[in-house]
């Protein structure tokens, strides 16, 4: 299957619907590399995707560039193709599975960061089966020397609260990709506020394309983080 791109997406052009531009901005991840990776991702060619990522890592690509300009951009594009009925849900799952697999190639570098003694618990909500965004957030915490505990998809609120009590993290990060789960998010935030007052929480994810980013006005310790770059800025405040 060859996906022919007919337009370039731009944040400004589509009223913030897409938070990305399909234009790799780094010199290392060229358009050619990106397109090659995306086509192989859509074909389900894990070996070729692995080869591309390994090659970039061997050339000492920045982990941020890899995450933002290759993994995130391609997943957003895959999501767009799925939402516009140009690829099936099976292809979308295959692409996600391959991305999860190639993410692990970067772990030796991500987990090698000098630890700063801070902790974050990152989780998806109940009924959230798209976990890769949350996992990438946990990895960004690790890259900044934090312990990024990732609880995975479809995490029941009781389990989340137990782990937060146990780990006592500086930050709880909640990832949400499906807007219809907004009620669950409020439920979790209310539980956190009443049972663990003072706990700093950040929320983010693709669900907020549809609204809800004003969530931080409703809770005293909740902050909406719109992108990995914003997360990075926020983490710098802790240094």
């Amino acid at each position: 299957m060859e996906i022919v791109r007919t337009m370039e997406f731009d944040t400004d052009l589509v009223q913030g619907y897409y938070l990305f531009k399909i234009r790799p901005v780094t010199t290392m991840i060229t358009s050619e590399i990106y397109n090659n990776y995306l086509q192989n991702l859509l074909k389900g060619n894990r070996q070729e995707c692995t080869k591309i990522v390994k090659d970039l890592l061997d050339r000492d690509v920045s982990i941020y560039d890899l995450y933002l300009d290759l993994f995130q951009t391609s997943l957003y594009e895959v999501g767009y193709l799925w939402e516009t009925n140009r690829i099936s849900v099976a292809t979308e799952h295959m692409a996600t599975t391959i991305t999860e697999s190639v993410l692990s190639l970067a772990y030796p570098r991500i987990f090698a960061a000098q630890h700063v003694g801070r902790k974050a618990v990152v989780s998806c909500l109940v009924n959230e089966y798209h976990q890769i965004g949350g996992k990438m957030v946990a990895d960004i915490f690790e890259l900044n020397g934090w312990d990024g505990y990732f609880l995975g998809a479809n995490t029941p609120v009781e389990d989340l609260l137990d782990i937060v009590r146990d780990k006592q993290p500086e930050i709880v990060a909640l990832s949400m990709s499906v807007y219809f789960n907004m009620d669950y998010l409020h439920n979790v935030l209310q539980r956190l506020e009443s049972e663990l007052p003072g706990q700093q929480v950040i929320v983010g994810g693709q669900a907020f394309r549809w609204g809800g980013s004003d969530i931080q006005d409703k809770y005293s310790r909740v902050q909406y983080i719109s992108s990995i770059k914003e997360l990075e800025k926020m983490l710098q405040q802790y240094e």
Partner: protein
Amino acid sequence: MIPDFSGQALNNYLAEHAAIILMTLDVDGRIQQANRFTHNLVGKDVTGRLLSEVIVDFTGSFDLQNALQQEDEQHLFNVNSHSGLPQTFYFRFMEQNGKILAVGELNHLETEELRRNLVQLNNEFSNLNRELQKKNIELTKLNELKNHFLGMAAHDLRNPLGAIRNLSEFLLEEARDSLSDEYIQFLELIHTSSNFMLSLLDQLLDIARIEAGKLELDFQSTDLISLIKSVVDINKILAEKKKIQIRLEHFETIPYVELDSMKIEQVMHNLLSNAIKFSPEGNLIKVHVFLSGEHVTVAVTDKGPGIPEEDIQKLYQPFTKTSVKTPEGEKSTGLGLAIVHKIILGHMGKIWVESKVDQGTTFFFSLPVKAESKA
């Protein structure tokens, strides 16, 4: 073509295009016709085959005639798809106009549930992999820290211990006549203990260096027999104290071997000193060098107490001692064989042991005649 959505035309369209298996069979169960979905699923050659070739009837108890008597009953069968991955269908069989009709339906709820479970399993697997890699890197860091500490401690302890050993040796040689027997015993104890501690420290430094990936091998084309002879000669002096003989036997011609002579000397010294340590007084130790294909093999055999089967697995782990006791209570650091093992692996060689309790032990190592070392 846009179908005529009425009556027979609609039925025909659905029969051809819906995700459902539709086949007609003869009385023997041979497939006569199949719809497009079945062709796509099973393969173009589906017609003419027996139903029993297309489905998997694990129980072997399916009987077509019985199934026709109970049209409402569903039969769960896996269908051999041409992709090689079987798919499960719920079948009904009915007879119409002298033909047998087989209808296989997917259970969409079941398929959806399966897909959901697969996604969940994949997520869990990938998260476990993340945790595993994280722990692995943490362990690597801890191991590096341990090696650094070991190296530092061993290095800093070496000088003062060397002074204790040398000065006790000096006193034993120079002041023996002016000391009481009791003081001489104390000095001998200081000398023996400091000697043991120095050899332990040397081995700790070796292990720390090797584990830190700093096993540097200087490969030279070497006359292995000469090398082994010189190590045997040195160890004969130690062996004589226990009236032990060391006999070297070797093939007449052994080619030069690419190896690091210092390190292989260390291997031989470790194996021989172990053999001496574990041999009862008055025994014989044999060293045998022979060629086996592209490898040269060295065997060191003693008549010691032997090593129990359960201890053999842990022989090469650092700081591990076996349950075997030396006949005269000689001390062992538990590091020698770990170092030997790493050095031989660094030469892309192999090391193994054959042992029988109460009969003795033979340690073998083999080295490629032409080295292709990873060091």
